C-alpha cells in the first residue's frame, strides 16, 4: 500500500447503517435548506464536467413540468474508469438516498439508474437493494420509485442527452443544448442527472454537514474524489483522495518509479508528461480532470517502456468507433486524426501534417456537438504536443 503523505479518506465507502435516519431527517428539511447545503459544500459533478450540484437541483426544482425525473448516470464508460462500479457494489444505498433527496427537492416521483450494459452483473444485487429502498420509502411515506435501465454498450450514451434518447428508445445521440436537462431532459421533462459518485457524496453532506465536506480539497475543488488508478502502477485500484494534490505526489505514491506520463481523465482527458508533474494539481481549478466526458477520476500511469504513439492510437481507435456519428467534426475528425498519425508514422505525410491535425483537433473542440467530440482534442493535443518525437519516429 502507498504510504506517503497523501491524505487518504474513507468517506464514500464507509459502510454506514444510518441511511434511514439520514433520509428521514433530510427530507423533512426545506428544499431551500437542502439546496443551500449543497451549494455551501461546493460539491461539483463527479462525472467530469464539474457542474455545481446544488445549482443543478435548484434549476430543476424551478422548472415547470408535468413530471420530473432523477437519473443516476451509471454508464461508466470512460476508458480507465471503474469507480462507479465499486460505489454501486459497496454503498448503493447512499446513491439511492441521494436520489430520493433530490426527488424531494425537485418534486420527482420517478428515478432511474442508467446502468452501463457491461455492468449487467451488478443488476441482481442492485435490484435487491432497490427493493429494500422502496420498503424504506414506504415506511417513511415518501412517494418515489427507482428503476434500473440497462444500457447497451455505447460509450456516447453516458452523455446525458444521448442517455435520455437511449432511455426513450431512440438512437443514443446527443441533443442540441440549450435546452439543458434541468429544463428538458428525459421525455422532455425537467430532469436532474447526476453521476453515481456525486449522489453518494450528497449523502455525506446530508450526514456530516456541508462544512465538513468543504473543509476537504482546495478552492473550487471541494471534497474528496474517487480515483481509478491503472496502468504502470504496482497498486492499481480505487482510491478516495482529497482534491488538490499535485501529480508529482500522486506519481510518487502510485507510480512504479519510472512514470513518464499520466493520463488524467481517461481517453477524453489530458496527458501530463513527467516534466509537468510538479506543476499540475488535480482538481477542477487546474482544468485537468475538468474536461473528461462521462466520468472523472481515471488516472492512467505510463512508464518509459510505453509508446505514447500507441497510447494515442488506442484512444483514437476508441473514439472512431464510439462517436455517435451524428456531427461532422466528431465522426470524420476522429477518423482523420487516427489516419493522420498513422500516415505520419509511416512517413506518408510530413511531420508538419501533425500541425494540421492539431488545428483540426482544436476545431473539433470548438465545433463538435457534445463532450465526446469536444474532448478528443484533450488527449490528442496533449499527447502530440508533449511527445511529438514519438509520433514521428
Amino acid at each position, binding site marked *: 500500500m502507498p504510504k506517503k503523505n497523501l491524505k487518504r479518506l474513507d468517506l464514500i465507502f464507509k459502510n454506514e447503517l444510518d441511511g434511514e435516519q439520514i433520509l428521514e431527517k433530510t427530507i423533512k428539511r426545506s428544499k431551500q435548506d437542502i439546496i443551500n447545503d449543497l451549494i455551501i459544500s461546493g460539491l461539483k459533478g463527479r462525472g467530469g464536467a464539474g457542474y455545481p450540484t446544488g445549482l443543478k437541483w435548484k434549476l430543476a426544482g424551478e422548472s415547470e413540468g408535468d413530471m420530473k425525473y432523477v437519473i443516476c448516470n451509471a454508464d461508466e464508460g470512460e476508458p480507465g474508469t471503474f469507480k462507479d462500479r465499486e460505489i454501486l457494489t459497496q454503498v448503493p444505498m447512499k446513491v439511492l438516498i441521494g436520489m430520493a433527496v433530490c426527488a424531494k427537492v425537485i418534486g420527482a416521483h420517478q428515478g432511474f439508474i442508467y446502468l452501463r450494459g457491461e455492468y449487467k452483473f451488478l443488476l441482481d444485487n442492485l435490484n435487491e437493494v432497490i427493493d429494500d429502498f422502496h420498503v424504506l420509502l414506504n415506511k417513511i411515506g415518501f412517494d418515489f420509485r427507482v428503476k434500473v435501465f440497462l444500457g447497451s454498450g*455505447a460509450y456516447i450514451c453516458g452523455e446525458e442527452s444521448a442517455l435520455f434518447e437511449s432511455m426513450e428508445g431512440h438512437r443514443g445521440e446527443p441533443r442540441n443544448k440549450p435546452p439543458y436537462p434541468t429544463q428538458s431532459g428525459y421525455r422532455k421533462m425537467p430532469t436532474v442527472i447526476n453521476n453515481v459518485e456525486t449522489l453518494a457524496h450528497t449523502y455525506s453532506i446530508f450526514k456530516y454537514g456541508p462544512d465538513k465536506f468543504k473543509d476537504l480539497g482546495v478552492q473550487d475543488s471541494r471534497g474528496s474524489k474517487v480515483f481509478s488508478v491503472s496502468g504502470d502502477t504496482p497498486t492499481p485500484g480505487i482510491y478516495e483522495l482529497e482534491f488538490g494534490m499535485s501529480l508529482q505526489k500522486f506519481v510518487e505514491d502510485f507510480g512504479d518509479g519510472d512514470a513518464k506520463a499520466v493520463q488524467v481523465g481517461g481517453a477524453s482527458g489530458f496527458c501530463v508528461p513527467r516534466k509537468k508533474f510538479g506543476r499540475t494539481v488535480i482538481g477542477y481549478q487546474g482544468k485537468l480532470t475538468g474536461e473528461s466526458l462521462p466520468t472523472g477520476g481515471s488516472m492512467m500511469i505510463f512508464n518509459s517502456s510505453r509508446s505514447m504513439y500507441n497510447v494515442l492510437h488506442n484512444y483514437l481507435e476508441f473514439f472512431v468507433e464510439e462517436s455517435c*456519428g*451524428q*456531427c*461532422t467534426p466528431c465522426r*470524420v475528425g476522429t477518423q482523420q486524426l487516427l489516419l*493522420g498519425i498513422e*500516415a505520419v508514422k509511416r512517413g506518408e505525410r510530413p511531420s508538419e501534417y501533425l500541425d494540421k491535425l492539431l488545428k483540426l483537433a482544436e476545431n473539433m473542440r470548438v465545433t463538435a456537438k457534445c463532450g465526446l467530440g469536444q474532448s478528443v482534442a484533450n488527449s490528442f493535443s496533449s499527447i502530440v504536443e508533449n511527445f511529438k518525437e514519438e509520433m514521428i519516429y
Partner: protein
Amino acid sequence: MSKINLVIDHIQVSVESGSTILEAAKKMNIKIPTLCHHEDLCVAGNCRVCMVEQVGSDRLLPSCATPAAEGMEILTNSLKVRNARKSVIELLVSEHRAECTRCYKNGTCELQHLSSEYLIGEDSLIDLVPLKEFTIDYFSPSIIKDDSKCIRCQRCVRSCDQLQNIGALSVAYKGQKMKIASFFEKPMYEVVCTNCGQCVNRCPTGALIERNYIDEVWSAINDPQKHLVVQTAPAVRIALGEALGMEPGKIVTGKMVAALRRLGFDSVLDTDFSADLTIIEEGNELLQRLKGALVDKDPNVKLPMTTSCSPGWIKYIEHMYPQLLGNVSTAKSPQQMFGALAKTYYANKINVEPENMVSVSVMPCTAKKYEANRPEMHSSGYKDVDLVLTTRELARMIQQAGIDFLALENEEYDSIMGMSTGAAVIFGATGGVMEAALRTAYEVVTGRDVPFDGLNILPVRGMEEVKEASIKIENPLPAWAFLDGVELKTCVAHGLANAKKVMDRVVKGEANYHFIEIMACPGGCLGGGGQPIPTNKEIREKRTRAIYEEDAGKPIRKSHENPEVIKIYDEFLVKPLGHKSHELLHTSYTERNRY
C-alpha cells in the same frame, strides 16, 4: 410576442423570442452557410457548418440550433468561425466521393458550392472514400441512393420521417460506420418507400437522386421509326422555369410546349386532358358509390372514397392500410390514363402503330417513374407510359439542346388530347382534385354550378395540413333525387404524415367523409419529388398561386365541358365507367407488407 435584443457582427438587432441566431442573421441579410438545415424540417444541428462565435465564449455555437438570447454578442465572420467552417467543410469533402465532374448534381450540389466558396484545396485531409466500402442502390426505377456521396446531414431521414411519417430511411451504426440506411439495408424498391422523392428534393449532394431517363428519351427521339408522344403534368408548367433561371411562380406553359417541339417530340400533348378525364371517371365512381350506399344499401360499397392520382399515396396505402384498398378510387392516375389512350385511341387517330409509339411523360414526381413500371400498366397491350422524366430532367434536356428557354415564343398543345380545362390545371395543387371533382359532380347532380363564387372552392385550397369542406345538395335533378339534402363531406390532406392522420381516423370509423383527396407530397404535386430544387413553403406558395392563376385564365374551368373529353366519350369510350373505361382507365391495387 416578446422581443430579444442581440448584437450580430457589431450591429444591434431585435428578433422575436424563440428565433434562432440563424434566423436573426437572415433578417439582417447576413448569410450563414448551412447544410443539415432545411426550412421544411426540424433542427438537427449536426453538420456544424453554421457555427458562429459568441463573444466571451470559448466554443462556437451552431446558429441553426441556438436560440437568440438577450444581450448576446455574435460574430458570424471571425477568424475562428471561418477556420472552423473551413475545417468542417474539409472533413465533409474528405468522406464524400467528390467526383464532381461525373456527378448528376454537378453544379447544384450544396457541398460543392461551399467547398468552392471556402477554397478547399487539394493538399487537404486524407481521402476516406477509397478506404471504405459503399453501396450504390440503383435498383429502384425512381430513386438512386449512393452512400459514397452522403454527408450524413439526415435531411432525407427527417423528410421521410416528419413530412411523410414513413421512416424508409434512418440512421444505422455509429462512429465511422454510421450511415443512412433503409430497413436492413435492403434495396429501396424492396422496403416501404413510396418513391415520393421528398428525400431527393432535400438531399444537398448527389447521394439521393432521381433515376434519370434522359439518354433513353434522346435515343427514342433520334430513332426515325418512333413516334414520340409527350404528356406534361399540371404542376410542371408552373415550376419548370425555376430550373431554367426564372423566379418561382412563373407560368411557362407556352414556352414548355415550344421547347418540347424543338426537342423533337412528335406529339406534344397534355396530361391535363386526362386529368379532366379522371374527374369524369372518378366523379362518376363517387356518385355510383353514393348510390350504392344510400339507395341500394349495399354493404360492399366502400366509403369514403379516396383519390388515386398520386402514386406515392397509392404505394403508401398498399403498404400501410391494405385493408382500405377498397376505398381507393379504381380510376388510374392521369398519367396512366393518358398512356393507355395514347397507344390506343390516339395511335389510331394519327395512324401510328402503337409498337412504334414511345410514350413519354414529364412529371413533377419521382413516384410516377415507379408507377409507369407497374406490371398492371399495360392496358394498351404495350407499356402504356414508356419513359417518365421529372421537371428537372426536362430542364436539363432543354439546356443540353441549347434552347434559350426564356426567348421562346408561346406555342399551343397539339390536338387531340391536348386540350384541358382549369379544373385539370389545379390537379397540381393540394385540394385541386377535390375542387375539380366537386365542380363536375355538383353540376352533374343538380344541373347548377357549385355554390361558390366564381367556381372557386376556397375551403379546399391552401397549405393547411388537413382541410375539410362540405356541400349540401339541394334540388338535385330527378335521377339524383336520393341525394337531396345530403351533405357531401370531403377532406383533403397533403404530405403522407397528414394522410396518416386522416386514414387513422377512417380506420377507427371516426371519419364520416364521402370523399378524401390525398396527395403524397407537401402542397400537392407542385411540391413533388421531381420538381426543381430548392423547395420550401414560400416557393410552394408561389407555385400554388401560379396554378390558380392558370385556372382562372382558362376559358373552360369544368372538366365535363372539355370538348375533347366529350368527343372521346362519343367516339371511343362511350360512357364513364363503361366497358372501355374499365379496360383502359381503371386499375387494381396490390396489398403489400408494412416491413
